[in-house]
């Protein structure tokens, strides 16, 4: 960059004689550059694979490590934290140094950050296929990895970044830096508070929150992970790289200020819109909705500032692949941030929730916004980092077009699939019966769209491979040793006088109006911009205050979580079964939340009540119904049916897309691990009483009852393990899972006296009459 060393126009640099001479650390940017690219390919490949699993469920070969429920979290984590994460780090390290005219404070911390983060990703890639998970979307990683994330994010990245700001040579902070500040602070807060857990052992924990409160915390986190991991840092990226590539000034400084603060303050409220019609109190999801609606314009402020910065530079878009990626990325940002508020509206959400519509929405954000912005940045950076020309501009342009076509082929059929399935679920015939009572019918209808999605995803992946080829070739053309330009800039003078405050723009008005007018001219904000600490404190105040407004009532008002006398803790065996349910990632395809919508209660039974979830750690309400809801699965099928269905769902329905869980019938349940698990639940308040002392015996007794009933109905009495050993059916993991499934949603109908009997006898049908 020829302007790297140009003198700044900002005031306060009188001591021109005492220039600091320094260089930027581009080595760290190169590391994050390659990591972005490699993890992009990994994330897309896993995505294409799991998309294929939905249309070819036997493709996993019955291997637990390749089951959809285990790999989908790997895909989302790889896309968010590995691909987008490394991209945002590359952007932050490259632009921050230049925007504040200072090398990163500590090269060692930069490296620790890089290698620490890659290790975390590798740990994720190992643990998730093994079924080691917290069972909360985008927060699946278990507690030791969570601690590592906190250390790397705050201790390495955060400290390094803020110390760099402290030692800056640019008086004022540019808008990109504001967005990075908001990112670092808020992600730290979200990550820590959503992951407060009680460890059971080295690789298993349960959240301190249960049921409704856990759901609330999770979506406060989940939505703001989108906000502060996939939006704010990428807006920072846009604010640096887009004007750089276009060589145009940013459209409006005022708009930057307004949309930054409104975005930061409003975004944090929006999470509960993921929980419309659930057992969450209605006021909370309503707040989530209205703040999402109010978020539309703050989001579009970023799009406007991006697109209008290109005024007078559109001819460059035609020839520069970098700008093509940026323009498409910003356009998709605009589309998703219109769609987001729309989906948050309760009436729309009633149709869209649990369908592929959400999947289309997040992919227009992730592939359209994050993906396109990241690739644009990589193509911008490559010639600068490797100090040579991009190997092939033509190939980059091909990448752009292939990715764009892939993107459209991904999202359009998935929109159609979402709408189709949503409408089929709620359709009634002339007599008022469900028009498509068999759930599998509604899956059959959208399989063709799933095939087109596979094609779209494959094209997007192909684009990524083209980028890899192009950028490796570019790298091969690098000089023997990289030139390290020396930058010179004066240190910040101790004394600084702000320009005089602006004059009111009207004279014949009262004093307070004059003051207000001066305030409106935002000179005060210019002062904040040279005080990183004050700026960061205000950001913290904005996100924390907004969060507390929702969190405190959710936790304090008892009536928000009505308790139901007949709801009892899970039996020891059911608890073990629930852990299997969580480990297998069943929540990726099955919800456990029947909404008070008539078509839904007709299909699944009485709608879910908040008090039914008080022992659910973690909550398993889910967000997508690739299979039917399971909130009232208990007692709906015989034990034998559950067994046969687990072994091969296509023996029950040939069109089912559920993978085979036959491996659960070939794995021994470790009964000795049950007592500490029960103790952990008891430590968090579940009233187990005496059961604590003989949890294992109780579990064995219940397993025997269930296995006996399966045998009586014609199932096998014993099964062969993979090592050839034969064990009784009651010792397999499948029985524990069946115990859990048969308990789901039954407590509502149990009499209090009966409930305690159930704990040893397993589920029985309730006595209460239909409502």
């Amino acid at each position, binding site marked *: 960059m020829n302007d790297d060393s140009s003198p700044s*126009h900002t005031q306060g640099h009188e001591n021109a004689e005492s220039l600091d001479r320094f260089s930027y650390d581009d080595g760290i940017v190169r590391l994050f550059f390659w990591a972005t690219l490699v993890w992009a390919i990994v994330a897309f490949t896993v995505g294409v694979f799991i998309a294929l699993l939905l249309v070819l469920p036997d493709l996993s070969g019955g291997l637990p490590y390749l089951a959809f429920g285990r790999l989908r979290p790997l895909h989302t984590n790889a896309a968010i934290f590995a691909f987008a994460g490394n991209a945002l780090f590359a952007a932050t390290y490259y632009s921050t140094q230049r*925007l504040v005219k200072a090398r990163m404070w500590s090269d060692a911390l930069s490296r620790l950050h890089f290698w620490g983060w890659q290790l975390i990703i590798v740990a994720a890639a190992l643990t998730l296929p093994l079924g080691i998970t917290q069972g909360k979307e985008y927060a699946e990683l278990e507690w030791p990895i969570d601690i590592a994330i906190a250390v790397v994010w705050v201790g390495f990245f955060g400290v390094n970044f803020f110390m760099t700001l402290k030692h800056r040579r640019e008086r004022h902070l540019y808008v990109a830096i504001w967005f990075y500040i908001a990112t670092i602070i808020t992600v730290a807060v979200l990550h820590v508070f959503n992951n407060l857990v009680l460890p059971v052992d080295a690789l298993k924990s349960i959240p301190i929150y249960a049921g409704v409160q856990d759901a609330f915390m999770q979506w406060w986190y989940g939505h703001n992970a989108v906000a502060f991991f996939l939006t704010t840092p990428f807006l920072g990226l846009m604010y640096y790289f887009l004007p750089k590539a276009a060589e145009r000034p940013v459209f409006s400084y005022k708009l930057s200020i307004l949309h930054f603060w409104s975005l930061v303050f409003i975004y944090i409220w929006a999470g509960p819109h993921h929980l419309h019609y659930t057992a969450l109190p209605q006021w909370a999801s309503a707040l989530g909705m209205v703040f999402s609606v*109010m978020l539309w314009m703050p989001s579009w402020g970023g799009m406007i500032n991006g697109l209008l910065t290109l005024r007078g530079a559109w001819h460059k878009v035609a020839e520069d692949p970098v700008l093509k990626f940026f323009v498409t990325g910003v356009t998709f940002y605009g589309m998703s941030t219109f769609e987001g508020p729309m989906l948050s509206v309760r009436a729309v959400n009633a149709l869209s929730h649990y369908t592929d519509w959400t999947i289309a929405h997040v992919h227009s954000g992730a592939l359209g916004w994050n993906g396109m912005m990241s690739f644009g940045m990589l193509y911008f950076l490559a010639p600068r980092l490797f100090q040579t020309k991009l190997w092939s501009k033509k190939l980059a342009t091909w990448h752009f077009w292939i990715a764009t076509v892939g993107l459209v082929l991904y999202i359009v059929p998935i929109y159609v699939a979402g709408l189709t399935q949503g409408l089929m679920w709620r359709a009634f015939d002339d007599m008022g019966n469900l028009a498509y009572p068999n759930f599998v019918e509604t899956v059959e209808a959208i399989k063709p769209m799933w095939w087109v999605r596979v094609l779209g995803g494959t094209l997007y992946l192909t684009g990524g491979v083209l980028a890899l080829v192009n950028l490796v070739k570019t790298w091969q053309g690098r000089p023997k040793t990289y030139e390290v330009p020396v930058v010179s800039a004066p240190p910040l003078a101790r004394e600084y006088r702000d320009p005089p405050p602006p004059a009111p723009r009207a004279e014949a008005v009262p004093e307070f109006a004059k003051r207000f007018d001066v305030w409106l001219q935002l000179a005060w904000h210019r002062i904040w911009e040279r005080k990183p600490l004050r700026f960061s404190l205000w950001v913290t105040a904005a996100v924390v205050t907004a969060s507390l407004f929702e969190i405190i009532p959710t936790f304090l008002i008892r009536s928000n979580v009505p308790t139901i006398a007949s709801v009892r803790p899970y039996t020891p065996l059911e608890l073990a079964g629930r852990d299997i349910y969580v480990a297998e990632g069943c929540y990726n395809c099955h919800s456990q939340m029947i909404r008070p919508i008539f078509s839904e209660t007709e299909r699944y039974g009485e709608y879910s009540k908040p008090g039914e979830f008080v022992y659910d750690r973690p909550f398993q309400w889910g967000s997508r119904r690739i299979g039917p809801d399971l909130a009232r699965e208990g007692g709906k099928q015989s034990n034998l049916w559950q067994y046969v269905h687990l072994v091969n769902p296509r023996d029950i329905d040939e069109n089912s897309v559920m993978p085979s869980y036959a491996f659960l019938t070939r794995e021994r349940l470790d009964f000795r691990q049950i007592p500490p698990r029960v103790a952990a639940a008891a430590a968090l308040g579940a009233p187990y009483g005496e059961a604590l002392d003989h949890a294992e015996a109780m579990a064995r007794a219940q397993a025997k009852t269930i296995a006996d009933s399966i045998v009586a109905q014609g199932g096998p009495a014993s099964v062969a393990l993979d090592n050839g050993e034969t064990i009784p059916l009651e010792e397999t993991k499948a029985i524990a899972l069946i115990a859990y499934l048969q308990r789901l949603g039954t407590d509502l109908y149990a009499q209090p006296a009966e409930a305690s009997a159930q704990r040893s006898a397993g589920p029985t049908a309730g006595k209460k009459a239909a409502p």
Partner: protein
Amino acid sequence: MTTKAEQDILLDHNYDGIQEYDNPLPGWWSGLFVGSIVFSILYLLYHHTGVEGRSIYDEYDREAAEVFEKRFAELGELTPDKQTILKYMEDPKWLAVGASIFKANCVSCHGDGGLGNVGPNLTDDAWINVQSVEDIAKVITNGAAGGAMPAWKNRLSHPNQIVLTAAYVASLRGKGGGGKAPQGRTIPPWK
């Protein structure tokens, strides 16, 4: 080339060569922002100030009442006795309702058309827990065989659904052809 952009006022900001214009907020942007805030306040006032009839549960009750009206207004409340079940067995309109419920809840065990799968074949003359036609309604209501056949009394939203489903199941007898081998004892015809 002169564009509007070149007449805008540049601020004296310069960050690594990036400059910023002092452009005002677009009017439509501010307008929609204020509009969304006003909408939000009105929405909360309408839905969350405790006025009856506006909650999602009120909506649910209205919807349920409407559908029940459509479905069962002309039926009234049916009793699950022999006469009633036999009557609706002959009524194609109401049999379709039973068929729909069967498709939603029963085919996963009893197979398409009741030919049997994990659960027994319902098209042959052999029955396990049924002696006469009203027993079908009892088995649907309370379940059988220690939960192998689940109880549906809490799961179906209206008692008429049990009667109509029983009628549909009764109508399946003799409509088989293949399917799972007979289980239980052979019983006399329904009538």
